[in-house]
């Protein structure tokens, strides 16, 4: 416990690159809320990689970066930022479902293989589903913004995507979540974070009539029995972890927008 508390307090002082701005300072403070759910080293890596990309953009591609941030604002980044803040707070305000996901992750492989032997007695799937969908959609849109910054830092052109194609930011934002998945592979530590969002849950859960069948312990998609509710809660935990990354992305981009006088 003492070690974990130390980890939590480390969030304030363990500063990666862009510090000294109220946005990033507060985001680091807010990040303490994620300490039980995101490992310290992973938090540091996620922040550092993103901050380093932004630093590379600021120093190596100053004018292009200003132009990219201006385009991000034109492409709905302020609204995205608002949604990230709202969703992150909504998810953390009711964090007890996250503990179920955490419990699942700590089960031995042998116990996980018999997940049907466990039951969850929660009666709030109807409230968790929209939160999951919101976090999933935001994480997917976040790929476009983080990917564009990464493109500029790595390839010197924000519209050069890792699949070798040239696309505008708006074109990538107009793609489906599934079509944007390739971007995650180019984002280092964030790739693992994104892999944890929909290991078990169908991408189209937001567009389907889904309910929790308590007797079988499974989610029912239309008339088809889908995954175990506990597996959904594991993906829900993954989606909430992604909001940690998005919180840092929005805070750091806001700091840069401010510092570059946009």
């Amino acid at each position, binding site marked *: *416990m003492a*070690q*974990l*508390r130390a980890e*939590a307090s480390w969030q304030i002082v363990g500063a990666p690159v862009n510090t000294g701005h*109220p*946005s990033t*300072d*507060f*985001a680091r403070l*807010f990040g*303490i*809320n994620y*300490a*039980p*759910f995101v490992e310290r080293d992973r938090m540091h890596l996620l922040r550092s990689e993103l901050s380093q990309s932004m630093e590379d953009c600021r120093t190596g591609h100053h004018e292009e970066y200003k132009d990219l941030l201006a385009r991000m604002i034109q492409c709905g980044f*302020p609204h995205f*930022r*608002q949604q*990230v*803040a*709202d969703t*992150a*707070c909504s998810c*953390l*305000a*009711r*964090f*007890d*479902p*996250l*503990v*179920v996901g*955490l*419990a*699942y992750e*700590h*089960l*031995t492989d042998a*116990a996980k293989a018999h997940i049907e*032997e*466990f*039951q*969850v*007695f*929660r*009666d*709030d799937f109807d409230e968790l589903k929209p939160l999951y969908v919101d976090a999933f959609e935001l994480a997917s849109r976040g790929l476009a913004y983080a990917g564009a910054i990464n493109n500029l830092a790595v390839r010197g052109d924000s519209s050069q995507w890792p699949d070798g194609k040239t696309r505008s930011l708006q074109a990538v934002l107009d793609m489906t979540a599934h079509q944007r998945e390739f971007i995650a592979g180019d984002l280092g530590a964030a790739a693992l974070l994104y892999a944890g969002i929909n290991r078990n849950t169908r991408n189209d859960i937001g567009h389907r009539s889904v309910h929790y069948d*308590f*007797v079988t312990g499974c989610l029912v998609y239309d008339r088809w029995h889908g995954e175990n509710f*506990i597996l959904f809660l594991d993906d829900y935990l993954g989606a909430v972890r992604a909001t940690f990354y998005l*919180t840092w992305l*929005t*805070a750091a981009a*806001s700091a840069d*927008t*401010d510092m570059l006088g946009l």
Partner: protein
Amino acid sequence: MLNRSLITCKSCNQYIVLRVGVGLNDEQRFVFQCPNCACILRGCLRLHYQPSSLSYESEDFMRLDEDPPDDASIKGVTVYTDLPVHRSCQGKALGNGGSAFLALQPLMGDGFIEFNQRKDLAQHIRAELFRPFGESRLLLGVATGLT
């Protein structure tokens, strides 16, 4: 903490010993199957801090004021909202392996200690940080440049 209550199912009018793991949230909505008639029963456990107490709300069962008798003929149900409950502890009294939390120990192996630490930290952060932040929404919004 496991709260033990005597309830009656409004569908079959049979007694049930309801054991609810008091979790982390102020409001815990739960669902379970009546062990007598298999009817789905829903309820909500609310925690109150000043003064410290808890209350149940349900349209499907009625909570009786009397303590559950030590009568093995009355079927029991063990309900947790913040832990996966293994079938092996279902319906058992606390002293007979009815704790879902303790049942997780052999199922997690070495991971149990870390899980327990993280769960405690989550509770600590919620009580001492998130709530005082006033559900941080406004502050986060302002700090990330919303306004």
